[in-house]
């Protein structure tokens, strides 16, 4: 019950301030600053060199290219955690060398390695949660579903996304970005669309993890936008000349400019900030709660999945998000609707203002045809 209280319902960037953005080509990077850095939680990067990683997640396996994991160290009494290099490094998982590529075998997305140390795979944790949503398939043996769906659920699920290196201009944008003093995170926009939000506990961690933004994966839309657009929308902010009589007014004006930038960039990120979230607790310590979330699945808006660590008082210590592509949103939206109506096709179709055949076609289109009985599919095709 206590844990439920700490589930994230929306991202309010509590404890963080937004600073003016830096722009390169179509990419806009907005720094997030933390005023009070406590140091009792640190995140360290652990690089993996393998071409493929297979993670044992209990009743299934998760396969992906995982360039790095994060190690979270914390102290329960509020004392600062030892800096990187002052700690023992551990090697986790097994490596299988191969002729055409090596494979890493890891146990669990989130694994406690020592008393106060937890290893997790950033973004993959959220992606695994996303893939396993409604994974069990229909709970009632409706006639409309195929034998495969009844016995295996969704079976083998896969999604694809784009590496940061493939996003035009991102490498240079990250190279020339000037990290603020006290900066702990960024909001990353491509063509003024929020691509990712990334927050870590301390400025030192951020400096070390800044370049890892390039190794992360991004949604299809972000990749396309980076290809299409070569510049941002022009945004300017100025001081009202009539309000300036003295130097103090000018100073006030500059302060106002900063505030305006912060407010406007907050407004730009509304597709994530202030959205209602469905969260799931992944790991809870004495005062930190690691959880993954998905935004309310509005098919007409940008949707995000992600993971976060929240402190007991609600401050955001860690955040990483991934922007779902339109087709990914559609898929999970349809599944969620089916699940909400107990996987009853007719009832779901009515709720979506579709005929049953239309719903079947929609399911075919997003790649879930294999869940349906062949007769149902044929009938829908004939109409």
């Amino acid at each position: 019950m206590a844990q439920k209280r700490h589930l994230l319902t929306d991202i309010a960037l509590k404890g963080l301030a937004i600073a003016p953005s830096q722009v390169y080509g179509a990419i806009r990077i907005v720094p997030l600053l933390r005023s009070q850095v406590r140091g009792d939680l640190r995140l360290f990067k652990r690089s993996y060199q393998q071409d493929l990683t297979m993670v044992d997640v209990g009743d299934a396996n998760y396969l992906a290219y995982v360039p790095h994991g994060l190690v979270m160290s914390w102290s329960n009494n509020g004392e600062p955690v030892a800096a990187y290099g002052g700690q023992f490094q551990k090697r986790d998982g097994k490596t299988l060398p191969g002729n055409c590529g090596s494979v890493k075998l890891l146990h669990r997305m989130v694994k406690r390695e020592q008393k106060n140390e937890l290893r997790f795979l950033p973004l993959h944790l959220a992606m695994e949660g996303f893939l396993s949503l409604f994974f069990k398939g229909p709970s009632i043996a409706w006639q409309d579903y195929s034998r495969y769906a009844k016995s295996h659920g969704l079976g083998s699920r896969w999604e694809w996304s784009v590496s940061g290196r493939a996003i035009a201009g991102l490498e240079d944008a990250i190279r020339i970005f000037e990290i603020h003093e006290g900066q702990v995170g960024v909001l990353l926009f491509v063509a003024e669309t929020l691509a990712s939000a990334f927050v870590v506990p301390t400025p030192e961690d951020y400096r070390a993890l800044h370049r890892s933004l390039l190794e992360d994966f991004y949604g299809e839309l972000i990749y396309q936008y980076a290809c299409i657009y070569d510049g941002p929308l022009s945004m300017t902010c100025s001081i009202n000349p009539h309000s300036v009589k003295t130097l103090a007014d000018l100073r006030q004006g500059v302060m106002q400019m900063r505030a305006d930038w912060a407010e406007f960039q907050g407004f730009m990120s509304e597709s994530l900030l202030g959205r209602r979230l469905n969260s799931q607790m992944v790991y809870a310590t004495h005062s930190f709660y690691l959880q993954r979330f998905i935004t309310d699945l509005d098919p007409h808006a940008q949707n995000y999945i992600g993971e976060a660590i929240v402190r007991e008082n609600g401050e955001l210590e860690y955040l990483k998000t991934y922007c779902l592509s339109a087709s990914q949103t559609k898929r999970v939206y349809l599944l969620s609707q089916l699940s909400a109506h107990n996987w009853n096709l007719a009832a779901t179709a009515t709720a979506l203002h579709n005929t049953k055949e239309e719903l079947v076609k929609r399911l075919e289109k997003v790649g879930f045809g294999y869940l349906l009985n062949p007769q149902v599919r044929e009938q829908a095709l004939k109409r």
Partner: protein
Amino acid sequence: MLHSAASRLAQLAREDLVMFINACLACTGQHEFYDDAYGQRVSIDFLHDYILGNYRLLYARSLAAGINQFNQAQIILKLLATGRHTLPAHRQEEGALIAATLRKFPPQRAWKVLAQLRQQGINNRRSRAIARDYFAQRQDLSFDAVKYRRKVKTIAKHAHLNLTGEVGPFLFHNWKQRTYETKLFEAFRQAHYSADAVYALPFTIAEGLAQKHQIPRGVFLENIQSRMTSGEKLRLQGSAERSQISIDLELGHMPLTKLALYILSLPLQSRKARRAELEQALQKSARQVLYKAPLKLDRVAAVLDCSYSASGSYEKHMRPLGVALGAHALLQVAAQDYRAFWTIPVEDPLLVQARGQTDLATPLLDALDWGANLIVIVSDGCENDPPQGAAQVLQLCRETLDPQRRVSIIHCNPVFNSEDFSLRPLCPLIPTVGLREAEDLPTMLGFARFAEGNAPLAELEDYLAARVQQFLGSV
């Protein structure tokens, strides 16, 4: 109507020239923080061709405007390649300017320019005469023939020169087969067989032969010291420290920017440990600059950019920050009352690091608050906290708070922006000038009135003509 067209043309010419000279002050065709080397080269090359085609005389005269050596070399090559377009009346002046510039160059650069004549296939009567004259005025050609052997050989061949004495046989006939009367040639021959003879050669030549004789680095550096130039001594300080020997060098005699860059190359601990020594050297070097170009200032504030972008690139490592530190030292000595305002406040300027965001508005406001007569801003002009912050402050300052311009403000930009062929300005109401080396600051303060856009073309032409006289007279 006619009058307005003429005045518009004059204004255009002035703008073009100011843009060109400004670009030539900063650009070296190398990788910058925001731009790559290719873009810089294409951009500056276009500017050169444009000015050469439209304002040939002024193009030649800009050799004397205090621009950097990379651009001086480009101008020489382009003038020599297109000699037939010179008007007869200007031919002599152009030739004199080229010869004088070559003579003022450090030898390695002059030889390189002449060698490039061959690479670019430039060969005409004038280019050959220029090469001949350069050979003739070298005091110790045998030294050059050893140190810059390949270049000297190339140029002599390309310009059909008759070399007197043993230089010809040394360069062109098999040098191994004879002994020489010239000491250096003989040392060069012997050094191929004896490790002891290596130490009579110039450092760069000896370095390769030392490798051949497998002389330990420490021993070699210890013994070759007397043959090093001061630049080499400065460059090899780190190498010497690793070999646990010391190379004696009077840091105060080094050029200001070079010294600043050396200081910035040191790790923070050694900067702290040698603080007094470095500080003194910096002041001494700054005083030397002022001795050559006197500058008396009253109450000066410097707004200095130490954001991450001041770290430059792998080719120009720390250059913008080095220029800022050099300017700081120079203004400190030149002004009666001086204060520095860094973008991220630093307690000790010698310990400055290139990091953090560019917030120019706050230090600028602090400088205005302090009540300076002159504010010098050294920055690459990319501000981001908030964007346009300093631009707004400068604009409102000029328009409403200080329309009489009681405070003069000048923006020195060490970085050329290849996209729009100019130095990124902060605000159109404030003059922006290029600054590659802090030593040029006194010249730039004089040049700033043209960048501001008030002075007419005639005045700029007079200024250039006067600089040419000064330039030719000082050789």
